[in-house]
Structures are given as C-alpha cells and as structure tokens.
C-alpha cells in the first residue's frame, strides 16, 4: 500500500502510547526499542516502493501523491529520526526524562514530516506542517527544569504559531482567489485567470514564504533558532536543525514549484537576496560564538541559505529541475553531517560539561574517536573534499551557475566567500580539541567512554558522510531522481 510507511509510523505511535501506559518505569527503555524498530520498519516499504517504482500514486483526489521525490525524502526523514532516537537513548535515560512521551512526540513529528513530502493540497500540507512542528514546541522545552530550555520553547512556540497563522492567511488568499485546495488546480486557475503574477498571489507567496522561512530559519525569520537550539535537549536540537528544517524545505519546494512557478522573477530575486543575506548573517554570527550549540545553530542558518539558493535561482529561471536536484542533494548530505556534528558536541559535553567550547581544549587526545568525528563532520560542513559536504556545495554551485544568470553567478560568489568564512569557525572546534592544551585535567576514563548508540550514530553518519564525498554519485542520483519525478 502506498502509505504503508505512514501507517507503520502511526502504529508505532499507538504502540508507544500503550506501552507507556502499561510498562513500569524500569522497563520503559522498551519504548525506545519499539520506536527505533518502528522507524526502521517504516524504512522497509520505502525501499520496496522505490525499487518497484513505476509511476506516481495519486490519492485523495490529487491531494496526496507518492512519487520518487516524496519517497526519497521520506526515507531521509525516517533515517534521521532513527538516528535521533539513537542519539536520544542515553540522553533521555540519563536525565530522567519522560521516555514514552518523548518518543511519542518525535514519532508524531516524523509522521507530520512524512505527510508534508506527499501532500499536494493546502489543507494536508498545513496539517502536516503543524503535526511536524507542534511536537517540537513541546520537545524543545523538554528540559523542564532548565530555564533556557523553557525560554527557547516559548520563543519557538510563539514564533511558530505566528508563522503558522501567516501561512494560513496566505492559504486563505489562495483559496479565496481560486476556490481550490489542490495545488495543481490552484496553479491551473492562477494561470488561466492570469493571476499568477497578481499582487495577491505574490502576497500569499510572501506570507507562506515567511511562515516556512521560520521553519527553515532563513533571515530575517531565523532569530528563534539560536536560542531554541541552545535551550533544547541536544537530540531535539539535532532533529530541529535537520529534520524540521528539511520539512520546511520540502514544503517550500513543493509550494514554489507547484503553485508559484509562474509568479515572475520578483519572488526569485527576493529569495536570492534572502539566501545571500542568510549565508552572511549565519556565518558572520557563527564566527562570534563560543557556545558550540549556538555555533551550530548559526551554521545551520548559513546552510539554510545554501540550500535555499538553488531554489531561489530556479524561481527566477523557472528551471526547477536543477534547483530541486541541488537542494535535495544538499539536504540529504547536510542531514547526516549535521547529525554527526551534534553527536560530537553531545559526546564532548558528556566529558566536560561546559557551554564554552574553549573549555574543551585537548579533549581529542583523551577521546580520539570523538576527535576524528569532529574533524570529519565539521570539515564536511565546511565543504572540504573528500568529505560529503563538498559535493553538497558543489551541486549548489553547479545549479547556480547552470544558466549563467547574473543572480546565480553573484550568489555563487557569495557562496564561495561564505564557504571560506565558514571554514574559520568550523575548524575552530577541531582546533580546540586537537591543538589547544587542556584547561583542566580530564579525570577518568568513564567520562571519555562513548555509549554504543552514539557510536552507531557516529559510524552511520561517518560512513554516509565519507561515502557521499567519495562516491557522490549515489546521493546525487537520489537528488536527480527526485527532481525528475517531482516535475513530471
């Protein structure tokens, strides 16, 4: 069945609730196991469907479509959630959090993300987005005793609701002018009535863009991100910066290419500027950070600028195939290296609990594995070959330059400059843990011990990061497949 992966996730959610009620506290780790298994199981139908793919499956009168694009991103979301679960296992257990509810909420968010990838009408997409984000409002405040977590949560929530209402207003305008909810119909009517470039369509596009811009944290809708990232539990932050962001991008890609593809250059130019500014603001701000999580927050803002840029240029040129290909490829590679980066911070914070990364001097000598992880993931983020990040950047540059458009060219130059700026702070953590001298003696081996779930996360991300760097063909094929099928 076409939506079997969604169903498996639903079943897992229900299972998690029931188990949470039934199980005594000491057995609650079973919930974690079930969730992990559930997410893995959900991956199987995706593979099966991908292997046996023949044509897009259209359901609910065109409002729900399963094509290669959605399959690939579903796979990504499931895998990322799986890794987040692994990241969370020790975290949730050690800090005495509410395990059942935690996994339940994450699975809900996953469900939302899965829905977004396939949704082709306004309502389904809205519900998908809400389902993906509301659990995150709660999870970001999961460290209940921690005031930073609380604060991050309320900021996230308020801005999230506001952005949701902006999206809604935008949707209402679209509905008002076309009377339809399904994207393809909306687009048809917009074109038929010559409304695609009307101020109304543009306004709704901007409102939607702002609303989704919040989720993907592009300037100027990004301001919640550093605070929330800093406050939220680390695995949640990782999830936020990867899956949540990807959800937003998926929604943006779908909306822009399915509805607003004919809305003129104005939107694209704005997006170009936004993505350029986002890169600069994210990177320059990241330069200033001493808190590693905040650093990653700003880095993920900057990366959002990178991911956005091909779509932005595609909006000008109308060549969505190239843009979607680049963005999706970037998203996939970015997901794994960013999870890895959070993993590194997680491991290091376990060893020296400090929010100032300069306290981590020389840690790599005690924990070489973590040191190697740090090198691989952070330099991959910086885009240094042969680590995966280079190819992500490369496809973006490629798509920017593909048309010879002046905006694309300028954006590519901005991107190149930003790649260099990014290197400075990405290299900083490696520098600190490998080259600086220790500030205090690291006492026992116990703290430098890396729990095996984290190791699994590390190695999975490591292998994916390196493989995507050395044999980028694999991932770029996915991106290519998604872009082709998405447009057909």
């Amino acid at each position, binding site marked *: 069945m076409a939506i079997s992966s969604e169903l498996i996730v639903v079943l897992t959610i229900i299972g998690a609730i029931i188990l949470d009620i039934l199980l005594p506290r000491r057995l609650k780790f079973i919930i974690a196991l079930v969730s992990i298994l559930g997410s893995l199981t959900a991956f199987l139908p995706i593979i099966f469907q991908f292997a046996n793919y023949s044509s897009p499956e259209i359901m609910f009168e065109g409002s729900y479509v399963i094509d290669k694009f959605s399959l690939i991103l579903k796979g990504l979301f499931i895998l990322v959630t799986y890794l987040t679960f692994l990241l969370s296992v020790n975290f949730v257990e050690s800090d005495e959090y509410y395990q059942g509810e935690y996994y339940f909420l994450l699975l809900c968010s996953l469900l939302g993300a899965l829905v977004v990838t396939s949704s082709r009408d306004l309502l389904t997409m809205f519900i998908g987005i809400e389902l993906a984000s509301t659990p995150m409002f709660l999870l970001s405040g999961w460290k209940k005793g921690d005031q930073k977590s609380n604060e991050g949560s309320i900021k996230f929530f308020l801005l999230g609701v506001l952005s949701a209402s902006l999206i809604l207003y935008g949707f209402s305008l679209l509905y008002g002018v076309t009377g339809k909810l399904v994207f393809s119909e909306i687009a048809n009517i917009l074109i038929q009535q010559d409304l695609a470039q009307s101020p109304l369509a543009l306004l709704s596009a901007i409102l939607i863009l702002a609303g989704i811009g919040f989720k993907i944290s592009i300037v100027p809708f990004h301001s919640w991100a550093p605070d929330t990232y800093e406050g939220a539990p680390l695995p949640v932050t990782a999830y936020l910066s990867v899956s949540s962001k990807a959800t937003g991008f998926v929604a943006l890609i779908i909306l822009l290419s399915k509805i607003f593809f004919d809305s003129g250059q104005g939107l694209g130019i704005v997006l170009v500027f936004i993505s350029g500014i986002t890169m600069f603001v994210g990177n320059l701000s990241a330069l*200033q950070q001493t808190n590693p999580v905040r650093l990653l927050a700003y880095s993920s803002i900057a990366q959002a600028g990178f991911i956005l840029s091909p779509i932005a240029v595609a909006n000008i040129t109308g060549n969505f195939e190239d843009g979607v290909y680049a963005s999706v490829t970037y998203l996939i590679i970015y997901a794994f290296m960013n999870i890895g980066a959070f993993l590194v911070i997680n491991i290091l914070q376990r060893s020296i609990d400090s929010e100032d990364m300069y306290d981590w001097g020389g840690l790599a000598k005690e924990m070489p594995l973590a040191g190697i992880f740090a090198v691989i993931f952070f330099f991959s983020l910086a885009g240094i070959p042969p680590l995966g990040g280079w190819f992500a950047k490369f496809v973006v540059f490629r798509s920017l330059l593909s048309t010879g458009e002046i905006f694309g060219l300028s954006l590519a130059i901005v991107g190149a400059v930003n790649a260099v700026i990014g290197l400075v702070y990405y290299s900083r953590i490696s520098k600190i843990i490998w080259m600086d001298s220790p500030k205090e003696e690291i006492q026992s081996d116990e703290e430098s011990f890396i729990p095996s779930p984290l190791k699994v996360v590390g190695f999975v991300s490591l292998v994916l990061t390196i493989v995507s760097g050395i044999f980028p063909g694999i991932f770029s094929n996915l991106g290519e497949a998604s872009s082709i099928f998405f447009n057909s």
Partner: protein
Amino acid sequence: MVNIYLVNLFAEGQPEYTDGGVIAEFAWLIVILPFISALLITFFGKYLPLKGAEIALGTVLFIFIYSSTLLFQHATKGIANEFFINVGSIGTFDLEFGWVVDGLSIMMYFVVGTVASLVFIYATNYMKGEIRYTFFFTSLTLFAGSMLVLVSSPTLLQLLIGWELVGVCSYLLIGHYWEKKENSSAAMKAFITNKIADIGLMIGIIVLALSTKTMRISEILYQSTHDYSEIKTVAYLGGVLLFIGAMGKSAQFPLHVWLPDAMAGPTPVSALMHAATMVTAGVYLLGRMFPFYQGMASQALDVVLLFGVITLLGAGLVAVVQDDLKKVLAYSTVSQLGYMVTAMGSGAYTAGLFHLWTHAFFKALLFLGAGSVIHAVHTNNMSEMGGLRKEMPRTFTTFIIGTIALAGLPPLAGFFSKDEILASLNHEGHNFYFIVSVLGAFITAFYMTRAVLLTFYGEYRGHGHPHESDRMMTIPLITLSGFAIVAGWVNIPGVYTGFTKWVTTRKTAIVEYHPESFDLVAMFSGFTAGILGIGLAYYVYKFSGKAIEGDQKIKIKPIWKVLENKYYLDLFYFKFIVDPVKITIARLVDSFNTNLLDRFVNGVGVTASKAGGIVYNNLDQGGIDKALNLSSTGTDVIGSKVKLIQTGKTQQYIMYFLTGVVVISLIVLLVL
C-alpha cells in the same frame, strides 16, 4: 640515451689538422677524474697516510701528464676537435656537454695541469697541520676539475657551469679559514661579485643562444663569421654582456674588488686560482669567443679595451700603496689581467693568451714565493718583514726571477708577452692606450721592486725566526722559476712563433695581427718603463735610509689616500648598494610583508570577525532594540513615561519577523 658523437670540424678546408685520435677522444678523463678524486678524498681521504693529498696529487699529475701529451701532440700535429654529449632537450633546443680539444683548450689544460701540480706539491707542505687539510684538497681538486670543465667546454652552457663551479670552489677556498668572519665575508664578496658579473654572462649566453638557436660555441662562431643576420643584431649587446661576465672572473674594474680580498684564502689557492687559472677564465672566454668579437662585435671590443686599460693602470697604482705582500700581488694580478684584456680588446688574440700563459707561471711563482715568506714569518705585512734574503735564499732568488719576469725585462717570460701586447696596441694605433700601458709597465716594475725591497732587503722588522722553507715548497718554486724564464721563448717574433700556431689552431680562423718581428717602439718603451720603474723604486726605497720609510717620500697625501682606499669603491658598494639592499630595502620588504600584507590579510580576518560582531550584536540580536530606543525617545519627548526596561526578546524576534514580512512585501509589490 647518451649519444656521443664526433663533429668533424674541418669540413671547410685546413686539412693539416687532425681529429686528435684516441687521446682527444679520451680527454674527458682529465675533466671527470678530479671530480671522482674529490669524492674519494672526501670520503676516504682522512684514512690515508697523507690525508688525501696523495689522491689529489695523483690526479693533477695525471692531468699534467695528459695535457703535456696533448700539447706535445698538438705541437707536432695540430688537433682541433670537439665532442658532444646530449643531456636533454628543451623545446627544439639541445642541451649538450662535451669537450674541446684544440689549441686554446690544450694550452689551458697544460697551464692548469702544470701550475696545479706544482701548487699541489707545494700545498702538501704549506698546509701541513692546518685545519681541514683533507677538505682543502677536496676543494682544490674540485677546482681543478671545474676549471677543466670550463676550459674544455664546447658549449656556452657547459662554460657557464664551469664558470660558476670555479666560483664556488673559489668561495670554498677563500673561506677556508671560516672561523674568522673576515674570511667568510671575503669569500662571500668574491662569490657575490662574480654572481653579479654572471648576470651579464648568463644574459649574454641567453641572447646569443636564442639568436643562433644553438649553445655550441663553434656553431655560434661559425654564424658570426658567416654574416648570419640574427646574431648580427644582438652581437654588440651579446659581446658586452659576455664581457661583463669576464669582468667578474677576470677582476676587471669596477668588479675587481673581490680579488684583493680573496687573498684571505691560503696562499696556494691564491697562486693557483687567483693568479694562474681561475682569474684568467675571463680572458679565456674572450679568447674562445674571439672570432665572434672580431666578426660581429668589434664595437664591443672597444669597451673591452677601455676597461682593460682602466684596470691595468688603476690596479697597478693601488698595488703601490699596499703593505700586505699578497695584496700587492693581487693588485698586480688585476693589473696584468688588465693587460690581457687590453690585448684582447685591441684585437691581439695571441698576445692576450700569451700573456695569460706567461703570467700564469710567474705570478704563481710569485705567490708561492710570497707564501713561502709568509709561512716563515707568519704575517702578510711587509712592514713586518725585511732582510729575508739571507734567511731564505732560494725563495729570494726565485722571487726575484718572478719579479723580473713580471716587470718585463728580457729575456724572461713577461718581456715577450707584454711586448707583444704593446706592439699590438701600437700597431692598431691606439696611441693613448699604448702610453697608458707603458705607464702600467712602469708602475708594475715599481711596485714589484718595492715589494722585493721591503721584503727581502733592509733589516728584519718582524718577530720570530724566519727560515727557509723545505724542499716540497722550494722545488715548485724552482720549477716555476724555470718556466718563468723559458715560457716566453715559445713565441718570439721572427724567431719561433709556436705559441701563435698552438692557440690559433681551432675551427674558426682567427684574423689578427701577428707581429712578424719585434716592434721596436713597443719593445723599447716597454723595456725602458721596466728599467725606470725598477730604478725609481730602488732609488726611493733603497738609497735613502730605511726601506720602510720609502713610502713617506712619495706620499702625495690626497692621491695616496684615494689609492689606500682603493678609489673608495668598496665604500661605495657597501654604502650605496649592499647596505641599502641588505638592510634598508630588505627590511622594508619584510616589514611590507609582515606589516602590510599580513596586516591586510589579518585585517580581512579581523574585519570579517568584526562584521560578524556587528551583524550578530546589532542586527541579529539588537537591531530592533535600537529602533525601539529611538521610538521610545520619541515617546519620551511627547511626555509618556518611559521606564528603561529591557525589551522582551521574544517580541523583538517577532518584530523582526514581521518587519521582514512587511519589507519583503513592499519590495515585491512595489519595487519588483
């Protein structure tokens, strides 16, 4: 890969010359052998009874024997042949090494072989107990090899290689006592000065090679004697450039400054390199390229002549005021080199080489004699010598022979060679230069006599007990004095002109003036100048009290001072070239690097970081704060009560958000 092939040189006539047969074909042995020996000495020398000197001696003796054989062969049946080995091609350009066996090179082989053998023998004793004895012989052997590379070279490329290699050996040997900074500085000075001159040589070679499309000297000479147009356009430039190179090695004014300082090296080095062989490389180069100068670059010869004459006079004058015996000889060498260059410049090919030939023997003799003296009295200063003729009779005698030869009195070697130069000048009608050269001869005689008188006559003014040097040192002296006497007899105009035949036996015919008989004017003036010089010196230093006070009598203060300061050339060089470059400009560049470039680079980094700070603190985190403060000041003005409370961050973010929306909407709707 290596293809040695023979070039038959005599395609155009002159069948009386032979290709030299096996002996020419194996001449590379004498070039290669020293290098092998140098390696052997370096690695095994220390373990041998004579600390490596035996290998060195064996090598040079071999060279001597081989070159003697060659000379003998050549004297009986002219050899002119060259051999090439291809060592690579760049573009269509072949890089070749090889060896030449013709009159000029054989003459040089012989000079090198002879003088080197004698100097080596001398040095085994002279250097006994000195520091780095073995290494000394390594360098000396290496030098012999390098010199042979230079003189055997059939291509400009190899010539350049040999040229520089002898420079390095000179550097090593001048700086032999490198514990003292003066010595290493002198070595550096020699090297750098030569290197400066080598710019000329290098560019000259480049110019010639590229316009003739070959590095082969014979080919270049062929083209320059056959009116090829490409070379014609660059001939003057090339000629001057090559001569600049020659000026360095052959210590021509104003690049001669290194040679006197080079006396910091051990005396055998001065004898071998800085008198007989290495310094004549420039003259050799002029000689080797002579057909080119004659055929194409005759204007360049005027330059050569001018500098030669300046040098011969200028250096001679400075020699007069020196107290250091070796420096006297050094300036004398410069002056004599000036003669050779003058000869070349005036078109007297044979005369220049002839002077080279004779000079090699008697100047080596003089140096070795001086070394013997220095060895005995442990000082270089003539003011601390005197009266040594009794203690060191053999040294004295040989030194006197050398002096007379140098002063140009018949029938010793110097007379014939100098006479031929004067004759040539006279013949070419360079009257002014002729007079200057005669004056030079006079000065030569004067300062040499002065040196002899100060050293060997009068009272002993030094400390310690001088004694005659032992046999290993005197035998070379005696042998060389023999040469100093007879070397000139191989080219007596009208009597026997074998030498002319030797050195003109080469592929490209030499068009030059050969005096068929003595030029009486030249002979008379040269002879008179010599006699007068000796006489005057004798008068000044011998007949009026103590020799040492002689200087006071002829001291014309301003001139003397200029001479003592060597025309202020060194001062000029250091003050206006070396120091500015080394200190001012270099530091400027360095500080440009650290202060400007690095500051710029770091500045970019800092600016980025600052920009980050500004973006982060003002825009990202506090931009609205500013706006709010502004607006609240506004409200303050209209009287609303304002508490300076911190803004709620969350709302600030929301403002951000919404401002973004509004601005973007306005832009999209109104602007785009």
